[in-house]
């Protein structure tokens, strides 16, 4: 009993010291730095394509990044299918039937050779898109999590990171199908993860209302960001890798500066009372596109923290969003079973 109390006191003491250390380095706020910046003009994006084919709620989508697949994306729906789309023609490049239809996440490998998905089956299934006979088959089933798979992201064709309802994130060796590193520390379900542009770090958002920055090779948590008042559902890196964006059930998004270890600003509006489900920054990081439970996507000026646009067109919750690697288009996926391409 005594030891536990002492540890608890020490933990609280350390948290206070971290708060103090953050205050010490805070000499400018974002608001001060952008006092002279003009608000971006109204941003109006139009639906250019609607991708039809899923028969149930879409839970996730991810753009391809390799030059050969920068106009391709993969989507996952609880109709039990992963579909790889050519967004220019709206054709389905692959329609992959899943063993478990309770899918919650999907990812496209940077090489374009594989896709992955997972969900209530607690596993991450890897599919080879470039099989010899043209058939798409399961390559590996990564099983070890004791909770649902909420998100997955490839580092390469041989490594993938997953986040889970069991409160951990895991780095896997795809070849051997084994866990290389377990990242434990969150006190609630991990809901989302994002990998840094240099592939050295990743961030996770969880139901303990915090976001954590992890060093992949050191296997340690470098920083923990608090401030949200509810589950963090969505997380992403700012394009230059020096900041983190989070979206939460508390109806706000926040921007955190990694190098100064501080919260910079909150994107909120008294008119928005529903949770943020997904987010993606534009190429320059000037705009933040965030999907909400109220069926809309709000576009924020990231510097001035004001709404400058809305993408309205879905008939149900927007569950996922992504901006293509060249910044030319945004894709939204919804519980209404459709994906839309906007620009």
């Amino acid at each position, binding site marked *: 009993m005594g030891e536990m109390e002492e540890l608890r006191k020490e*933990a609280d003491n350390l948290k206070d010291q971290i708060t103090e250390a953050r205050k010490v380095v805070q000499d400018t706020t*974002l608001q001060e730095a952008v006092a002279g910046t003009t608000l971006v003009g109204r941003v109006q994006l139009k639906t250019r394509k609607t991708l039809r084919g899923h028969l149930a709620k879409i839970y996730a989508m991810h753009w391809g990044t390799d030059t050969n697949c920068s106009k391709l994306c993969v989507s996952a729906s609880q109709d039990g299918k992963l579909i790889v789309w050519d967004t220019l023609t709206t054709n389905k490049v692959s329609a992959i039937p899943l063993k478990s239809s309770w899918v919650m996440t999907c990812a496209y490998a940077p090489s374009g050779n594989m896709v992955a998905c997972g969900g209530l089956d607690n596993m991450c299934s890897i599919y080879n898109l470039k099989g010899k006979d043209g058939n798409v088959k399961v390559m590996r089933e990564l099983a070890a999590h004791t909770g649902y798979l909420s998100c997955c992201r490839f580092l390469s064709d041989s490594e993938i990171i997953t986040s889970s309802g069991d409160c951990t994130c895991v780095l896997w060796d795809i070849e051997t199908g084994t866990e290389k590193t377990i990242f434990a520390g969150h*006190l609630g379900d991990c809901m989302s993860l994002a990998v840094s542009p240099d592939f050295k770090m990743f961030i996770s958002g969880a139901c303990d209302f915090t976001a954590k920055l992890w060093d992949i090779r050191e296997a340690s*948590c470098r920083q923990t960001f608090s401030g949200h008042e509810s589950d963090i559902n969505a997380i992403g890196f700012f394009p230059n890798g020096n900041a983190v964006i989070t979206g939460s059930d508390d109806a706000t998004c926040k921007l955190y500066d990694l190098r*100064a270890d501080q919260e910079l600003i909150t994107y909120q509006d008294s008119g928005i009372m529903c949770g943020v489900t997904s987010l993606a920054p534009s190429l320059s990081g000037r705009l933040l596109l965030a999907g909400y439970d109220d069926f809309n996507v709000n576009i924020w000026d*990231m510097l001035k923290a004001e709404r400058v646009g809305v993408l309205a067109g879905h008939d149900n919750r927007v569950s996922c969003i992504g901006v293509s690697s060249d910044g030319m288009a945004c894709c939204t996926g919804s519980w209404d079973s459709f994906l839309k391409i906007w*620009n």
Partner: protein
Amino acid sequence: MEDLDLPQMKREVESLQYQLAINRVSSITVTELVKWIEGCVCDDPFLNPELMRANPWVEKGKCVIL
């Protein structure tokens, strides 16, 4: 925090010690972030209409004169 057992609590304390020790740069980083964004805006297709002139997702004219 009430839900942690002793080993988890020890790891939490170790993690906090590690997190306290990281190097924090002054928020001059904020000014740098703003400069970075402003430098990239002209390359952002959502903010620079010039870059959207050749929009691959826009339907070309439906009829072709043969």
